[in-house]
């Protein structure tokens, strides 16, 4: 993956830049020794690494503003970072950038159950948002797999999803307002505790802009009362395509499960060896979860199981207790970790129309044979958001490149099937150069023009999202 050459002038001025940042921040908030900045050299896309010039950890909106103002004046690029769990390289540094970490902005600022929102510092982790309202039986709905570690700042930057968005939507559908700092240090509030924008929907634009338009320091999030209960059912099939057809039939039938998760044989076997969830021996399994009172759950599950029976299942397993429910989810929740035990892998994130599921799964199988790399499929089937895991060996010369090439083919396949390159992880650097497969030049031009408005010097996370070739004139003009 190509990254732009670092600006030699900035590299040579490191001492002055650090000194300037130390003037506006407490001493321990500026990290600049070679050994220390190494902690920030990559995010969860660990195949790519580059230590930044330095890293800062501001603890207030004012400190964020001071840092950005200083960097703006010095012409130094800034890469915002939540918890560094991006699978797309969204927080990958360049050698000439300042990493701005939001970790210290982690306070709960306000909880309001009457109006059903919580206001938090953007560095707060996703799961601890729910943790803050759990005692009143409320929760924050978006639940990315990394929710124990990932920060709300990163969730907003990438418009993160999760397993339950079929019912509850993704981050943008649950975000009510932000406090944001622009690259020149200007602090502004967008949205708030009311619904919908007074004028243009800038909040909708900010969410998913991958830290390229501003740095969010506070977020107002919608919280919901927990349902009375939830119960999963596991369905095993001897054919991927049949499982895919079953998903479409469930959705058409008028029930809206809170989650429909899919795993194929490779993932089933790998997770079962690892987590011992006791999954059946089959080609494909679905985990379908519904919510409500016990009788409501019974009624919905009966309907869903009726549909499943028409697709000749190998096994249908209903959870009779909380323990059985946990076992059904156990394998799915440990799937990524389990696959990581047997090989290095690259996790893709393309979305396809649910109706194309059988065709796309078949084609992925063919590509797997062509490239000689194994692929495991585990994904959110209800909304078509696929997560093919391509297995490779990082120590084998050329394997990463082979894996990248195959990943690109799969993502193009998703686009050609009527879908998109990324459903919830973001473009980052990983899918940057594939953007021209999904978008025409004018589609990218207008997006870059939006960045021009928020960040005319292209200092915020500049080498991401857009193909380097497309953004080159802007980045160079800014230097």
């Amino acid at each position, binding site marked *: 993956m190509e990254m732009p050459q670092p600006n030699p002038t900035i590299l040579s001025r490191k001492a002055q830049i650090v000194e300037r940042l130390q003037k506006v921040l407490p001493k321990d908030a500026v990290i600049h020794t070679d050994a220390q900045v190494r902690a920030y050299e990559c995010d969860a896309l660990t195949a790519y690494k580059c230590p930044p010039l330095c890293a800062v950890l501001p603890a207030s909106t004012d400190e964020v503003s001071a840092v950005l103002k200083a960097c703006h004046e010095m012409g130094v690029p800034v890469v915002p970072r939540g918890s560094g769990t991006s699978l797309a390289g969204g927080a990958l540094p360049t050698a000439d950038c300042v990493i701005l970490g939001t970790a210290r902005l982690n306070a709960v600022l306000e909880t309001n159950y009457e109006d059903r929102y919580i206001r938090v510092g953007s560095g707060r982790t996703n799961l601890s948002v729910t943790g803050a309202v759990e005692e009143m039986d409320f929760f924050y709905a978006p639940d990315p797999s990394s929710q124990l570690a990932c920060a709300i700042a990163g969730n907003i930057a990438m418009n993160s999803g999760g397993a339950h968005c079929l019912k509850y939507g993704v981050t943008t559908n649950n975000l009510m307002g932000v406090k944001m700092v622009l690259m020149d240090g200007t602090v502004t509030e967008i949205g708030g505790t009311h619904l919908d924008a007074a004028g243009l929907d800038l909040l909708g634009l900010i969410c998913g802009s991958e830290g390229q338009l501003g740095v969010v320091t506070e977020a107002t999030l919608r919280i919901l009362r927990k349902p009375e209960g939830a119960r999963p059912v596991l369905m095993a099939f001897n054919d991927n395509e049949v499982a895919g057809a079953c998903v479409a039939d469930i959705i058409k039938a008028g029930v809206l499960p809170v989650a429909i998760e899919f795993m194929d044989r490779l993932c089933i076997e790998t997770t079962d060896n690892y987590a011992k969830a006791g999954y059946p021996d089959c080609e494909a399994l679905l985990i379908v979860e519904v919510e*409500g009172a016990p009788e409501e759950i019974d009624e919905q599950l009966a309907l869903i199981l009726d549909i499943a029976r028409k697709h000749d299942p190998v096994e249908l397993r209903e959870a009779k207790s909380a323990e059985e429910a946990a076992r059904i989810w156990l394998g799915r929740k440990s799937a990524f970790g389990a696959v990581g035990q047997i090989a290095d892998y690259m996790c893709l994130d393309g979305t396809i129309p649910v109706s194309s599921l059988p065709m796309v799964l078949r084609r992925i199988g063919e590509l797997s044979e062509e490239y000689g790399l194994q692929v495991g499929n585990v994904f959110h089937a209800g909304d078509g958001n696929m997560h093919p895991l391509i297995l490779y060996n990082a120590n084998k010369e050329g394997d990463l490149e082979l894996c990248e090439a195959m990943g690109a083919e799969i993502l193009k396949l998703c686009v050609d099937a009527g*879908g998109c390159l990324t459903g919830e992880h973001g473009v980052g650097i990983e899918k940057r150069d594939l953007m021209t497969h999904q978008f025409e030049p004018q589609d990218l031009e207008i997006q870059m023009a939006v960045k021009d408005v928020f960040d005319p010097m292209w200092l915020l996370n500049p080498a991401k999202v857009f193909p380097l070739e497309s953004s080159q004139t802007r980045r160079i003009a800014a230097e």
Partner: protein
Amino acid sequence: MKPTTERDLAEAIASAKGPLRITGGGTRDVGNPVVGDALSTAALSGITLYEPGALTIVAQAGTPVSEIEAALDAENQRLAFEPMDHRTLLGTQGTPTVGGMVAANVSGPRRIAVGACRDHLLGVRFVDGAGTVIKNGGRVMKNVTGYDLVKLLAGSYGTLGVLSEVSLKVLPKPETEATLVLNDLSLENSVAAMSAALGSPFEVTGAGKVKGQTCIRIEGFEASVRYRAEQLTALLSKHSDVDQIEHKASGSLWRGIADVSGFADHAAVTRVSVKPSAAPALGVKIAGQHNVDVMLDWGGGLMWFGMMQDDAAAVAHQAIQDSCAQINAHATLIKAPIETRAAVPVFQPENPTITALSDGIRAKFDPRGILNPGLMG
């Protein structure tokens, strides 16, 4: 001008010599008056793709909302955000289009449970002010590929681009619905009751106050609706006696709330988006000083102020906006004679940073400033 293809639409905009007044079906005459050549998307019509199993529909911008709803109804699905039909309130003629619905980000009572029009909008194709055809988003439910211009276009009233095609997420229609009614609550008690219902696990999909009635809606399978109605009745009985309205009657009650039909005879109407718990004080304050009627939706988060006398409307609207500015709420003058709309800010003025960013975006999308210029202020 009434182009019949996206290409003709692009050509019409590229060759425009001056400002354009853009409409869909012309039923939502909202915003500052625009002077310019009329350009309608009504002839760009037809459903392009509908996949019930994928919960998505794609249609050209001029497609009548009624045509979309009929197609969805045949598959027992619907536009879950319950778009308002403005004809009753505004007394307009014509056929509401899906493009107009998106351009005004029109949502109804169910917005509180499932999100707004913008939350169900998956993709757009539009023509910018230079005549360039641009696409953003797509037709899948999860898509974070590039910036989300889809949300930006929703509610931009044709000032950033003229929509040529939209794709929307649709949802299954529930088997039945019921509404619980609490009579004669004060604004404060009404919002408290609605908050209690919305904060319960019983999945309320509508909460509003019309005339003396506080209404709480539940939808779903029959047994489930019955169960939740019982639970909610028990929960709400400390606020007042609770009556229940069944399926059909409930449906028409909420159609009326969505369309604000109760204010059809009012000369002017202001729509306010506010934190629900701040609604009672705002309502009491404005009603104490001005001759207004008040309706609530979204559990109190949406307030409608109806003014009977046209000559006092500008003053009342201004007072509402001034109060909103103090509590981070916003007010839009939805209905008023053109002279009134020209005399006051129709949309709530925003802070200078937001205004500068919005102006900057408009200048990029519409460098000549010809798309509905001034409509949003």
